């Protein structure tokens, strides 16, 4: 950092952080972090989950107070004690998990982000103006919970833009968008930059950062480890800076198509969602052979959780023949019965669905593995075998925990996920259905999970991978299909799937459905 930058004036950077420290119990989230954002630049903040990006951003936006360090705004020392103060300075923020009020209308949500009554005058008209100017179509009178994720994001952006921000903070904005929606967002962001607005862009999607951002600050374990121009680095180099380890080249040679009878067949599965705003499953058919990894891509909320529940048996299908597990009709069977036949299932939500937080790892292991792991005796828990099973998972998957007696909730997201994946994998399932296995998991744990899944498939297990992370699906899967609005596209081999086709299918475009159908060998 150059001390000369300290001077106020037209050349001073817009925002400068010096030596920001934030300590949480048991974790130094920010360790003397420096960050400089110039006027009119898109600045990337890169890092794994837990690198301290979110904490830093919350400090900039006044949600948290730093324990030490200085903040300079236009070269002048500034104290940002609250989000209202941040907004008054000209800092706007679009959150990763949108801070929207579902029961309120678009206009009401926007109004809540504006501090003074004067700003709220003629709001509906101004929302319309801004959305037209930046290509962000929105209807002010609609209720948020009826809107798609992309539309929700637009509300947040419009809310920020109404205040003519000088700095716009975007926390992982594209993690919920289709590739096409993301492209539209980039157009909007570039226009904002052209108008002199700086953008702090938080992401771990490297290609995106390379295309969009002039400068990148890379964080690891609470510290800034590098600052660079991302366009001059390869995505690989950036990733290595982020995780500080040489990445293994993904082994993606075209494997021979697995032969043999399908182990999981889903046949015209149609289920009405039990949730009031859930997605109904419509006429879903696919089959997965032993040794194959079948990917189901799609944007959140298009029927993934309903499909997961139907496959695991939490929701019964219409008739037994809708789902065949190794040839046996199991459509009406409950999860335990399906597990007995060789099915293993791991839902998306770790806390409360995949695992019971306040219970120990051993108990959590028992909950899923008592049938296949033979952890019960005369209907009672076999404590010794249960403990051993958990210990085996912990050892095999390098789970950082104090032992089988550790509470599940005491583990970090990545460690708990490794334990849960290990719990299912060690049961040697014939069919494994797994949803979002690396959501919110650091790159190291994700790599371990990928390896485990690939190895499991090699032993002849049929794996269904439901994920919103396209990179993950393209990396692991042999064939993929896309779920949109409760319908599943025809499956295609991963080599023939272009990002564009997948993106269109994710948006539910009918022509893409047909294209995919044509791409299939008859």
């Amino acid at each position, binding site marked *: 950092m150059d001390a000369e930058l300290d001077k106020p004036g037209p050349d001073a950077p817009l925002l400068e952080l010096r030596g920001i420290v934030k300590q949480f119990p048991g974790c130094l989230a920010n360790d003397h972090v420096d960050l400089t954002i110039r006027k009119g630049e898109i600045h990337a903040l890169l890092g794994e989950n837990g690198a301290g990006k979110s904490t830093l951003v919350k400090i900039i936006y006044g949600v948290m107070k730093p324990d030490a360090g200085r903040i300079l705004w236009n070269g002048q020392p500034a104290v940002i004690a609250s*989000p209202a103060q941040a907004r008054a300075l000209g800092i706007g923020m679009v959150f990763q998990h949108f801070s*929207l*009020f579902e*029961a*309120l209308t678009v206009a009401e949500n926007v109004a*809540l982000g504006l501090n003074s009554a004067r700003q*709220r005058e003629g709001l509906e008209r101004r929302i319309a103006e801004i959305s037209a100017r930046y290509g962000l179509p929105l209807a002010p009178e609609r209720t948020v919970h009826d809107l798609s994720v992309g539309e929700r994001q637009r509300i947040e952006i419009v809310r920020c833009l109404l205040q003519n921000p000088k700095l716009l903070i975007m926390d992982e904005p594209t993690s919920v968008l289709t590739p096409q929606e993301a492209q539209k967002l980039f157009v909007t962001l570039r226009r904002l930059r052209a108008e002199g607005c700086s953008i702090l862009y938080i992401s771990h999607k490297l290609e995106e950062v390379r295309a969009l951002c002039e400068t990148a600050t890379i964080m690891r374990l609470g510290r800034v480890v590098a600052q660079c121009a991302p366009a001059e680095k390869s995505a690989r180099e950036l990733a290595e800076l982020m995780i500080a380890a040489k990445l293994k080249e993904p082994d993606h040679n075209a494997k021979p198509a697995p032969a043999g009878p399908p182990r999981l067949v889903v046949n015209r599965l149609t289920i009405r969602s039990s949730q009031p705003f859930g997605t109904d499953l419509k006429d879903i058919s696919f089959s997965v052979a032993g040794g194959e990894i079948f990917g189901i891509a799609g944007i959140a909320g298009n029927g993934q959780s309903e499909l997961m529940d139907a496959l695991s048996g939490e929701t019964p299908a219409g008739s037994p023949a809708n789902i065949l597990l190794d040839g046996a009709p199991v459509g009406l069977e409950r999860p335990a019965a399906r597990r007995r036949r060789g099915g293993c299932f791991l839902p998306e939500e770790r806390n409360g669905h995949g695992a019971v937080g306040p219970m120990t790892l051993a108990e959590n292991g028992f909950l899923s593995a008592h049938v296949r792991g033979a952890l019960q005796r005369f209907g009672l828990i076999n404590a010794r075998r249960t403990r051993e099973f958990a210990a085996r998972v912990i050892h095999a998957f390098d789970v950082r925990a104090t032992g089988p007696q550790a509470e599940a909730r005491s583990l970090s997201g990545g460690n708990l996920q490794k334990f849960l994946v290990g719990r299912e994998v060690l049961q040697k399932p014939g069919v494994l259905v797994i949803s979002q296995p690396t959501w919110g998991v650091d790159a190291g744990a994700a790599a371990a999970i990928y390896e485990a899944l690939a190895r499991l498939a090699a032993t002849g297990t049929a794996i269904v991978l439901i994920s919103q992370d396209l990179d993950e699906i393209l990396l692991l899967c042999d064939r993929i299909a896309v779920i949109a609005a409760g319908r599943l596209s025809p499956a295609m081999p991963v080599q023939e799937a272009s990002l564009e086709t997948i993106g269109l299918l994710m948006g539910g475009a009918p022509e893409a459905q047909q294209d995919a159908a044509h791409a299939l060998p008859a």
Partner: protein
Amino acid sequence: MSAAYITSFAISIVAASTPLLLAASGELVAEKSGVLNLGVEGMMLVGAIAGFATAHQTGSALLGIGAAALAGVALAMIFAALSLSLLANQVACGLALTIFGKGFAALLGAGYVGIAGPVLHPIALPLLSRIPLLGPVLFNQNILIYFSFVMVALIAWFLNRTHAGLILRAIGDNHDAAHAMGYPVIRIRYAAVAFGGAMAGIAGAYLSLFYSPLWSQDLTAGRGWIALALVVFSTWRPVWLLVGAYLFGGITFLALYLQGMGFSVPSPLISALPYAATVVVLVLISRDARRIRLNQPACLGKYFHAIA
């Protein structure tokens, strides 16, 4: 059936519905901010005795109402301190508040059982009160009955038309987001709970200064619980609270007046009818999941702990 009979029926309904409406409209505001205070019954009882005792000592029923509101607020603040500041479970705190309120009111009221106190007198509105049928029912009533109507209108306006009301609803819908935007979640919830306490206290005073008008130990007879049910019944909309309270009041008296007209209705059935009707209506209401999702505060009863 004479006009006088119908008028007296209608007046009875208004009289029986008002305490429910008062207590429920306060609770509605608290719940809209995301706080479930099950202590309504306790706050009503303490309000009732505070109001009665104050009115008895000073001779002024109006001062009694003021004292009742303050007593309700005081009790509500105990609940708020426990559940909002110390993060105790809201359901448990609310239940404890009711039990505490019952006992505390009985203790305070030991010397006031069976004696007469000042009573709220009807205030006839000029001209309006002379409208046949409607006049005596709606425009020749005591001040708290007018107050209950005004409050429903005010609350509906506040919640749906003002920015402060919008903030209150936003906090009930998503307290984390509201906090992230810089709204003082806890402070606003304190205010909403205090308002709920004041309204419950006033509802209690209505019972001890007009409806009974006496102090007795179990004066509220479960009305606090009915008020809580009415908030759900209304799916958190003030206007429907009015409908619910009057429906309940109506059913309470319908059976009595039917009996008066010569139909024989077994008396246990009469006593059970309003409660049974509440259960049936609640079940019917909860079938419309969308409306509940839109109006029920999503953060109702949840802990809020801000990390700063």
